[in-house]
């Protein structure tokens, strides 16, 4: 079962949330970030090349122009491969764990898997981010030393940064699965 909803992130950009319901114990949430806009790309490239041309008229060395082209290409490739995240996915499988995948614009995928034994709870927390107060979803991990303590807080959807309405949808589904897991684990 699959459906798609449209939300916005904290800056007002459009996000698309795809929910896939595989079974009562397995759900996947896929958040697509806004793509790289042609306008900003053109603006950055033009400014870099204008600066290079200005330096060229000062120094009369054509190496500056080829260096500027080289830097622009390498910078764009590096940005697409290391910085720009296209999609963030949260896969929650009851009795196995929670998996978070980030897909970069160049296709690279970076995955983190947390076992269910380490997960204490999934909550929505507030944070002060620059001049805003934002909400974010995070996973609390158990502390093996202290039974009631928390060893780590792992934030989810860090680069997409959706608003509260999107987070509430994801939070409800996650809590359903965690409750389902607790119910079936207590009964033999």
């Amino acid at each position: 079962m699959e459906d798609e909803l449209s939300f916005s992130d904290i800056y007002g950009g459009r996000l698309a949330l795809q929910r896939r319901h595989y079974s009562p114990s397995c759900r996947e949430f896929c958040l697509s970030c806004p793509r790289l806009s042609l306008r900003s790309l053109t603006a950055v490239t033009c400014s870099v090349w204008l600066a290079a041309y200005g330096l060229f008229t000062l120094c009369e060395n054509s190496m500056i122009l080829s260096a500027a082209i080289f830097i622009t290409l390498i910078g764009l490739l590096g940005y697409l491969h290391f910085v720009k995240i296209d999609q963030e996915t949260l896969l929650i499988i009851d009795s196995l764990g929670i998996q978070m995948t980030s897909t970069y614009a160049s296709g690279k995928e970076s995955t983190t898997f947390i076992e269910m034994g380490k997960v204490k709870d999934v909550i929505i927390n507030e944070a002060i981010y620059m001049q805003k107060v934002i909400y974010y979803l995070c996973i609390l991990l158990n502390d093996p030393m202290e039974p009631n303590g928390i060893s780590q807080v792992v934030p989810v959807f860090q680069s997409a940064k959706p608003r509260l309405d999107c987070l509430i949808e994801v939070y409800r589904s996650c809590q359903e699965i965690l409750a389902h897991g607790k119910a079936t684990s207590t009964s033999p």
Partner: protein
Amino acid sequence: MVLKAFFPTCCASADSGLLVGRWVPEQNSAVVLAVVHFPFIPIQVKELLAQVQQASGVGVAVLGTWCHRRQEPEESLGHFLEGLGAIFSHEPWLQLCRERGSKFWSCKATHRQVPTSPSAPGEDQVMLIFYDQRKVLLSQLHPPTALPDHQAGDATASTRGLAAVFDTVARSEALFRSDRFDEGLVRLSHWQSEGVEASILVELAKQASGPVCLLMAYLLSLISAASTCRVFKLWPLSFICSKLSTCEQLRHRLEQLTFIFSTQKAENASQLMRKANMLVSVLLDVALGLTLLSWLHGKDRIGQLADALVPVADWVAEELQHLLQWLMGAPAGLKMNRALDQVLGRFFLYHIHLWISYIHLMSPFIERILWHMGLSACLGLTVALSILSDIIALLTFHIYCFYVYGARLYCLKICGLSSLWRLFRGKKWNVLRQRVDSCSYDLDQLFIGTLLFTILVFLLPTTALYYLVFTLLRLLVVTVQGLIHLLVDLVNSLPLYALGLRLCRPYRLSAGVKFQVLEHEAGRPLRLLMQINPLPYNRVVHTYRLPSCGCHPKHSWGSLCRKLFFGELIYPWRQRGDKQD
């Protein structure tokens, strides 16, 4: 709770038979290791499993049945398989079935014993997780954080979570030794059933490594015995050897080679990785050194270098002379005390004169010495760089001497000033109580003390200027030497074998796992594919870094500034085991 069945991808196309593996009750999961095919005799299967259990320590048992229906559905096979549940009793009994031409499987897990609460069914839901047996066998799991007190206790016995799956597969090698060409009593299907994997080169290397290790260990023991003989313990040689970084680097390399060629086998995986990293590092070092050697000895570069060396040393000495002439005049418009200025300036100029004569005395022998030192590059690039660093230290020895003279003079002056300043205010340093106490001085003591204090204060700028200039020069030389040492450290400690392994065989070093949900149909069990998540490069370097020489600056910036201000001598590159001055 959902039952998790870990199924190897290699057995997905195998014929019908019995599922053999390990049941982990804490996580309600069954790790299937192999499939036993018909015909078999139950007694022989039980004997084989007992053998494997004894050899590996893993609790291998028959977990259930596997049915792969290639032709029309056979009812008799179904009943036969159900009957097997009575012979090999296991709780719960797993029944996996795959239809011909269908991607979706049917799984059932039945409990023999009826549970106490009537509402819970006798069957469990099953979740299928496919894993690549070969990759999981060869991979080494690196947990994210090593908990401080969980190290020694639960190393082998119980591993948490998914590490249990890795552990089970890795320790069950005894089960995977037979392939389908063996004339064994029991026919198994696993990742090696098409033929046991082996490599001729690896086998040859294993056979050859025994005698080679013995030979190299003997040679290295001879060399280390020669280096610890009495001659090197006598005072001049031991002092020089402790100051030269070449000796330190050679000693480090000797230790590493002794470790690599020791006749003891590596106890665990991390020791094996360390040996491999050291070996690759030594080989790369020697290869780079030989490249440097061939470059140096071609086109008479040694001769050119030797010809350039004496003029460079002359030029450095001349520039120092100009600097001193400038200091003896009115440097930067400051007014110096003429008499002291002349004394210090002439003293240092005489030293430079001595140094230039020494260099000119050595100049006929420079080329021979450089040629022989160039030969040492075949021991490795790190040795050549250490020799370069030592040559720089020797050529700038006069700068070091000037720094020491200037620092000692300045330090004496500061000590005198602080003590006389206390006298000026009527106080005294109490050595017994280590504090400043008031004291009543006689009039003549006060008079002489104030006089001396005034003299020292007015002579302070001159001494301070000389100290500042020579300290800056010394720091420049130290920076250059530091950069060379940094490069040597990099070559010494970079784990190249681990990086190469991460590049070419990423499944060998794993940080964890990742799951992918395969095509799903409602009503069918959930199917997942478990893949290995490789370790990121920065964690590879951090985990497998080799220990370096340990020649790191031991001062923080604050203590360095404090030492500079009070004129204490700084030794930034203390070698290991040196006593403090």
